[in-house]
């Protein structure tokens, strides 16, 4: 089918002139106002901004979980709706959202099961993915027996189940302690790099955005707009070396100033 074949040359995500309004009890609210965003394949892009800047909404529009009021959203050259039907993206949220009545392995299998993958094949895939996120030994456990960090890793494994070309992540590490968070950041970079996955990552944390991303998109609130774009050129997943490097802090400062509304010097540095 021509509609389900992705155009290889097309960027992974292309958002143009996106506007999103919601009707609320207090009247209409403009969550996003004329947002443009292009993500090339294989890139790691973070959205950061104050609460209410529409970064989660933007992620949901890309995932076709919210229908935009106006504007164009293409995922791998297809409409967002088609990309969702074709399972071109995997998604993970702040809360793992595991089904408590299923074992860990059966949670990872869920998307495969829904799309008619055979029992043996999906079990093998789930065990591979659990191995990948370091949870091979708890495949038969119930989600309630796992720590928050382990549950989040199961959710990431589940998001990767269909080998998506795009990973949408809405503050997936937001509820974790700092140590777990840093370990999972490295794990995510490793997993995404190994599969060549494009990642769109929403976060509240400036260091997290800088550490993970090739590009940090800084948004402003009411209405949600792209305020600045900070390109980051640091070695990926280099752990403590990068987290303590002067260049790391320089980019953190750039993002912080962009969030405050100061003009950004960089952007051409990449």
């Amino acid at each position, binding site marked *: 089918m021509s509609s389900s074949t992705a155009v290889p040359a097309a960027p992974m995500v292309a958002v143009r002139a996106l506007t999103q309004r919601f009707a609320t009890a207090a009247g209409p609210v403009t969550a996003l106002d004329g947002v443009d965003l292009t993500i090339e394949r294989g890139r790691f892009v973070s959205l950061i901004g104050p609460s209410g800047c529409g970064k989660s909404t933007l992620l949901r529009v890309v995932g076709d979980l919210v229908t935009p009021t106006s504007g164009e959203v293409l995922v791998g050259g297809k409409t967002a709706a088609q990309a969702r039907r074709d399972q071109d993206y995997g998604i993970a949220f702040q809360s793992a*959202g595991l089904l408590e009545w299923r074992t860990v392995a059966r949670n990872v299998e869920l*998307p495969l099961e829904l799309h008619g993958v055979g029992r043996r094949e999906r079990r093998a895939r789930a065990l591979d993915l659990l191995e990948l996120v370091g949870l091979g030994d708890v495949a038969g456990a119930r989600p309630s*027996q796992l720590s928050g960090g382990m549950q989040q890793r199961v959710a990431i494994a589940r998001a990767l189940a269909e080998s998506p070309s795009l990973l949408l992540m809405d503050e997936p590490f937001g509820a974790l302690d700092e140590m777990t968070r840093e370990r999972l950041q490295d794990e995510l970079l490793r997993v995404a790099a190994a599969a060549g996955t494009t990642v769109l990552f929403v976060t509240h944390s400036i260091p997290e955005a800088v550490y993970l991303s090739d590009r940090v998109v800084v948004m402003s609130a009411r209405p949600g707009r792209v305020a600045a774009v900070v390109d980051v050129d640091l070695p990926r997943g280099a752990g403590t070396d990068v987290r303590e490097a002067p260049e790391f802090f320089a980019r953190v400062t750039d993002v912080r100033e962009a969030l405050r509304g100061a003009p950004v010097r960089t952007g051409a540095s990449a």
Partner: protein
Amino acid sequence: MSGSAVAPARGREAAAGALRRVAVVVAAVAVLAAAWELYAALGPVDGAGVGGVRLLPRADERSMPHLGTVLATLGEPEVAVPGARTVGQAVLAGAWTTLRLALAGWALGALVGAALAVAMQRLRLLEDGLLPWVVLSQTVPIIALAPVVAGWGGVLSVGPIAWTPASSVVVISAFLAFCPVAVGLLRGLQAPSALTEELFTSYAASWRQQLLRLRLPASLPFVVPALRLAAAQAVVGAIVAEISTGTRGGIGRLIIEYSQQATSSPARVHAAVWGAAALGLLVAGLITLADVALRRSRGTSGGPA
């Protein structure tokens, strides 16, 4: 895994908890029996009251037969004919008949309730329009409803099967049983978080897939208590329906017959009431057993398999 080490201890705890609950139930029955006997022995024989309003019940043998007398009645023949069945056998036979009718009513009610709940979950408009009526339906007195349903006899037939008094009992019993299932299952189907619903949307899952893989499994903790309540309602419904439609063979009819014999053998009606109570307990117990089996297969109460 720490879970596997915890599981046996959890099992022991659960066993100890179950034992404690059984002990509490036995103790409660014993206290109740002792209170009954104590009042029957010490209470005023003609009751007591103020200005003609009786506040304390009579404690004579007709109003409050000794528990031993009721037990002995179970072994007495029902009528003074050689080879007649005993009262105990009559109560058992009646309870068995009513049990079958109540279970049929419970199953029918659960089916109708489940269908309503699924429809209401699917369409918000249906929920807004239907739910108040579901709740309101339970305020209709059975005594008023029974003659209407019984009147379908001879008029209505389901395929080749003619409408019998037993059908009326089943329908009235189902009428009481469907409400808790409809309300409980609806709450359960609406239980999944917005996040898991979004997840299923991201998988482009169909409504049916979402129902089978997400909403129904998530509703189980709501459905089991609803089914238990429905079972109790079905038993009450069946007994009241038997009485108000005059259906023979069940425990309801037996209660009426024995209360008419209260002058000559007052303990009999108590024996029949015991049968009715045991019936309710039995049905509730069956649901609890089913629940335990279900939990075990889902593994939510124990450790990993």
